[in-house]
């Protein structure tokens, strides 16, 4: 189809009317250009939002106890209750499909006063008692040392892991924090690690960067709460339904704590999966919308190409008739018209694609591609797959645009051109 002779033939007809060819091509150029820009922007927002939840297990559920709302087994309604470590063991043992469970003991910051000190330097940070599983749900980057481990829990060691900001504020980045002693709410702890959150938007009870992480058992002893804690999180194992698991977990807890089987008010359950799924749908929706708008714009370009080529064909009646008289078969005429439309569209499409990608690369350079706290727009570029898809769409539109003109062209008989008026 595209040997040198054909290209020559096609190029002659395209180049013969440069202005019109340019105008024709502009529609397709614009369609692809808009599509690329829209897709890239969509990706920018997608990346931006994703960076905000990076590291957080999206299949997790958060559960906190609240006073009961129904009287049951001789207990009044409005009774306070707490989950404890044996509940966690029971959940892990009895409910299949629960992957990781992470109990959390949270100590909020005291009304703005400094409560954590290294030497004389202090800061105001919240404390959080966790087990190693915590790092499976709210994943963090370990900057120094390590996270809380199993031995810390078993031996209730007086160790801590500092959030990045806590480390910077009270110790300072010029010092290796490992092995240093800090004082938190009056008790001394050995620093065994420093961590940083992957994101700063999704977190459990305050940013991890501004938190002192302690072994759960250590904190339970320090605050004399036995084996109780404030709330827990669990993740769903692959292949299990989060909603079903939530029901099972609630039922188990009701049974263990003499709560009415119909009491829904005794828990606050937050389903991260549901929220993230909603976001996924939102993005899918945006993406579909972008493709519809983009392809719509492109289609109007295609209609433009088709239309102008129809006019061109009409003007070329005599020329095409002469070609037919000289022995051009219908297939050759079809091929030529299609190739013309294809070449025009592909050239315009490539220019649109390249320009779109180039512009978004520049924009991306300004916006940057590293997550930061308040940027919701990140690395707005289209992927390789989308670029390929766009190219294929361009080719298909080229063929599509050529169909009507080609049909019109083969309807021209040699006799129509030869007739002397």
């Amino acid at each position, binding site marked *: 189809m595209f040997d040198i002779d054909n290209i020559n033939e096609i190029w002659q007809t395209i180049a013969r009317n440069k202005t019109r060819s340019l105008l024709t091509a502009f529609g397709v150029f614009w369609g692809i250009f808009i599509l690329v820009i829209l897709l890239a922007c969509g990706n920018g927002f997608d990346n931006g939002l994703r960076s905000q939840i990076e590291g957080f297990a999206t299949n997790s559920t958060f559960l906190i106890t609240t006073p009961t709302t129904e009287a049951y087994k001789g207990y009044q309604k409005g009774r306070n209750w707490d989950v404890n470590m044996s509940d966690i063991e029971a959940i892990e043992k009895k409910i299949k499909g629960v992957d990781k469970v992470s109990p959390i003991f949270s100590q909020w910051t005291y009304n703005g006063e400094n409560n954590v000190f290294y030497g004389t330097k202090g800061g105001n940070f919240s404390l959080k008692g966790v087990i190693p599983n915590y790092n499976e749900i709210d994943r963090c980057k370990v900057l120094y040392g390590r996270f809380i481990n199993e031995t810390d829990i078993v031996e209730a060691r007086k160790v801590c892991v500092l959030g990045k900001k806590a480390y910077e504020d009270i110790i300072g980045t010029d010092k290796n924090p490992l092995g240093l002693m800090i004082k938190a709410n009056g008790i001394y702890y050995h620093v065994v690690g420093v961590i940083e959150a992957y994101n700063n938007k999704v977190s459990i009870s305050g940013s991890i960067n501004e938190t002192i992480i302690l072994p759960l058992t250590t904190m339970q002893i320090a605050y004399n709460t036995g084996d109780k804690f404030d709330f827990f999180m669990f993740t769903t194992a692959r292949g299990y339904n989060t909603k079903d698991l939530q029901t099972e977990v609630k039922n188990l807890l009701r049974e263990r704590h003499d709560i009415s089987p119909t009491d829904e008010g005794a828990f606050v359950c937050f389903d991260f999966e549901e929220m993230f799924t909603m976001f996924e749908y939102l993005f899918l929706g945006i993406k579909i919308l972008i493709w519809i708008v983009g392809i719509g714009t492109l289609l109007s370009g295609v209609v433009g190409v088709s239309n102008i080529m129809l006019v061109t064909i009409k003007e070329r009646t005599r020329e095409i008739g002469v070609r037919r008289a000289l022995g051009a078969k219908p297939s050759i005429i079809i091929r030529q018209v299609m190739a013309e439309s294809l070449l025009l569209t592909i050239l315009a499409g490539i220019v649109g694609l390249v320009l779109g990608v180039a512009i978004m690369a520049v924009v991306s350079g300004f916006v940057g591609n590293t997550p930061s706290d308040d940027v919701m727009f990140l690395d707005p570029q289209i992927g390789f797959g989308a670029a390929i898809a766009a190219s294929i769409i361009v080719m298909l539109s080229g063929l599509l645009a050529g169909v009507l003109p080609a049909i019109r062209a083969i309807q021209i008989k040699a006799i129509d051109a*030869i007739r002397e008026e």
Partner: protein
Amino acid sequence: MIKLENINKTYFGAQPLHVLKGINLDVTEGELVSIMGASGSGKSTLLNILGILDNYDEGDYYLAGKLVKNLSENQAAEFRNKLIGFIFQSFNLIPFKTALENVALPLFYQGVNRKKRNTMAMEYLERFGLKDWAEHYPNELSGGQKQRVSIARALVTSPKIILADEPTGALDSKTSAEVMQILREVNATGITMVIVTHERGIANLTRKIVHLKDGIIESIEENDPDKMDFTKEIK
């Protein structure tokens, strides 16, 4: 070479027009025939049928021994491309192609490669004294030059037969004489030639003059063009 038996053709326009009413004609190989008649007598219609550019309603048309009837578009294209060369009154050169490209075009449709095409086209242009005009576009050529280009184009595929519809209709008398001289020389190489004209002077330069009137052949006149004096005006 050409055999027409009872050819009938009606144009179905606003009202049907029976243009050819039973044409019987034989043209043997190497003949130089002219078709004469008043304007509207059906000369072009007949020639278009001969050139397989148009179809007929009744009768049989044999070209080089083959019945030309109900051909597919592809077959018709192939016949035209291989057997027939066309020369038109208004030349029908493609305006955005050079003389060379115009002459080479029929070879393109035969699938001849570019180099060979151009060499052959150049040979024919040279033969008609147009070597220096090969790279010129039709609008840079005079009427006589244009017609010589189109003769070259008609001949480049070595057709069996040349069909010319008023080939001198757009030319002045001196140029007409030159063009007719060329056509006679081409005929002399053995190529059958049918020329449509309404000018007696042109018809006089052919060996056989077919007089067409009201859709039938009125008479066929034998003629000896060598008795004619070419230096004289032919119009």
